[in-house]
């Protein structure tokens, strides 16, 4: 087995170089195993991180666990690197999306200032109701 992996009873102890895998990557890889193993982190975040994995199931192959953990380390290290590389474009997309959906500076309010213009009797054809019907009623009376 690799020199940075050793088995102690039902526990596998993995030594991780924090210069290769940052602490956040070690945390992320550990979180993946929370439901399948008991995890204890120890060591020095500057020099060597010690991860102690004890599978919950007695039937689990602990050497496979160690291999899976190392794979997760690579997975999350790559994820962190890609996230850093694409940070600017993700921020630009998010900013664009927020600006697209932001409300207008002034709320849309109906403008009634020129409503009287529609009532202007330009051709003098509008006759008040009282004026038009009063005469007829008066004639009948």
């Amino acid at each position, binding site marked *: 087995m690799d020199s940075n992996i050793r088995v102690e009873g039902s526990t596998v102890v993995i030594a991780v170089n924090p210069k290769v895998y940052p602490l956040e990557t070690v945390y992320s890889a550990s979180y993946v195993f*929370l439901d399948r193993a008991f995890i204890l982190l120890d060591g020095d975040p500057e020099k060597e991180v010690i991860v102690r994995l004890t599978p919950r199931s007695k039937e689990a192959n602990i050497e496979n666990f160690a291999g899976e953990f190392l794979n997760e380390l690579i997975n999350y290290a790559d994820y962190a690197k890609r996230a850093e590389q694409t940070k600017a474009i993700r921020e630009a997309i998010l900013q664009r999306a927020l600006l697209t959906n932001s409300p207008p500076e002034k709320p849309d309010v109906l403008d009634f200032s020129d409503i009287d213009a529609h009532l202007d009797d330009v051709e003098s054809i509008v006759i008040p109701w009282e004026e038009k019907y009063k005469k007829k009623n008066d004639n009948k009376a």
Partner: protein
Amino acid sequence: MIIRLNRKFYSETAVREALNDFKHVCKGRIVSEAMAIEILPKDNVPFLKEEFYNYVLALMKNKALV
């Protein structure tokens, strides 16, 4: 039972929160600056200290996501 969590990896806030959440199954307190935690199980709970380790880690994960 005394367990030790490395302060460089585990936040004290998460440990305190975990102790509070575990109060129905055990009594616990932080006894030293190096985060030695004394856990006194109320019943015979299997893997209590290991579950405690995982719980603290899970709390830190949730904090990181917020």
